[in-house]
């Protein structure tokens, strides 16, 4: 096993030996239950259940990628920033002094975690919708391909979000600060940018995740995938530059 794979294994063990993944999993279960409740009890303004009447409506309801990106970004931000908060980054850099390799190992582990959690989240929501639809007048109308697209989009958005979070966590090095920065970047900044440049609306995470989930078609899917990867990659690159320049104190 190469030294990088050893560090990756250590990073995976870090993630699986605290309660954080279980806490996120708990949130996913709650979200799935809320989706089920929405199917059972929710109505449109006119009291009908048109919001689940077509395959497109149901796919839109199950589209989890935007939430997956936000949740995985928080997961990544906390995972990276807590390394500094608890000074566990010190033994990490003693084991792998080439810091870019250590960060890439952490990035791979957290992206894997983000993708897995997001896939589980999407799966739970699909299951919740499928299980509760029989209580209504509508059946499960989404094709297998549609379900696969929803789940796949969630996994991709989860990985990109986790990368974004790792970048911000590495840059900020404070859990509260990293969480705040994640909210600002994903929730506050996009509407402001759209106000300034309306053309940017197609390139914010909510729009991109809609495209890759098959819910909207503002831009081509490959372009949306590349842009989504960019949202994750840019903070990682900035974090990497900062990491190489500063001392571990």
């Amino acid at each position, binding site marked *: *096993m190469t*030294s990088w794979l*050893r*560090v990756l*294994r*250590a990073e995976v*063990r*870090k993630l699986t*030996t*605290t*309660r*954080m993944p279980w806490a996120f999993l708990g949130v996913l279960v709650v979200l799935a239950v809320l989706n089920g409740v929405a199917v059972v009890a929710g109505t449109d303004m006119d009291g009908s259940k048109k919001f689940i009447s077509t395959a497109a409506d149901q796919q839109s309801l199950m589209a989890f990628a935007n939430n997956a990106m936000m949740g995985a970004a928080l997961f990544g931000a906390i995972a990276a920033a*807590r390394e500094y908060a*608890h*000074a*566990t980054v*010190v*033994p*990490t*850099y*003693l*084991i*792998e*002094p*080439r810091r870019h390799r250590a960060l890439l190992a952490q990035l791979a582990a957290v992206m894997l975690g983000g993708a897995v959690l997001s896939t589980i989240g999407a799966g739970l929501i699909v299951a919740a919708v499928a299980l509760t639809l029989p209580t209504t007048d509508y059946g499960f109308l989404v094709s297998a391909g549609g379900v696969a697209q929803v789940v796949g989009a969630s996994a991709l958005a989860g990985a990109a979000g986790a990368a974004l979070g790792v970048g911000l966590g590495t840059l900020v090095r404070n859990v509260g600060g990293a969480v705040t920065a994640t909210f600002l970047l994903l929730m506050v900044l996009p509407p402001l940018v759209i106000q300034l440049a309306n053309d940017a609306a197609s390139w914010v995470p909510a729009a991109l995740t809609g495209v890759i989930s098959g819910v909207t078609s503002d831009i081509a899917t490959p372009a949306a995938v590349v842009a989504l990867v960019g949202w994750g990659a840019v903070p990682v690159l900035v974090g990497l530059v900062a990491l190489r320049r500063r*001392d*571990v*104190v």
Partner: protein
Amino acid sequence: MHTLVFEHVTKRYGKDVVVDDVSFSVKPGRVTGFLGPNGAGKSTAMKVLLGLAAPTSGAATIGGQRYRELPDPARTVGVVLEPNAFHPGRGGRDHLRVLADGMRVPTRRVDELLDLVGLTHAANRKVRAYSLGMRQRLSIAAALLAEPTVLVLDEPGNGLDPQGIRWLRDLLRQRAAAGNTVFVSSHLLAEVEHLADDVVVINRGKLVTAGELAALQYAGVTVRTPRADALAGLLTAAGATVATAPDGGLTVRGMTATDIGEAACVAGVPLHELSAHSGSLEELFLTWTDDHAPALTPQPREAMPV
């Protein structure tokens, strides 16, 4: 066998000079105590050695290589640096398993180390439930995980009970006797006095003295005379370093008792006491790090050439 070498290491943070042109070496087969008051720059110097902080100038090497250039650094150097470098929600065994994964150490070694440091009973307990002493034992276990030949330990005795201190002392002495390099900072001067073969003392970032502890402890001569000022001037002119104690006694370094006696005799200065000075480490430490005391020539530094 790895010798640690600091060569003109300087570390600045903005305008603050935390480590100032420090040069010394730490030899294998010996325990070297690293002493200095709080904020003297000990931890920063150790971080420079371990590649965690970049020196502003100079270099610190381990066996002639910078830490990051070592083929397998974590298996070569065992480190205790941060007092609480644990995730509080992770168990003690899991903490070591994370490190073992990264170091390519078999998992059974984790249990051996837990047994060695007396934490087997608490291995699955979250670290947040550990006492300070238990955390310190866990840190020491982590440092020993890969059987390193170099130990760099920053205040490893913090929080340990007397039995733990004794255990640590025996462990470090065994390691040094086996030819390993042991570099340990501590505020527990009495413990260092029992433990260290050599000491390095820094204050305000500058090297104060470095050398064999026994030589340093016996390096001074105590002189009492009713004409202290005259004798101090005489000895200083002869090249000695003279410090005046509050009770009027003189501590002279750089001249033997015989030379001092002869010089006093020739000058007609009566002597009431002339004795080789063997101060405790604490006494010496306070002298070395007293910013108001006259600087003492670090004579025994030559015992540890860089």
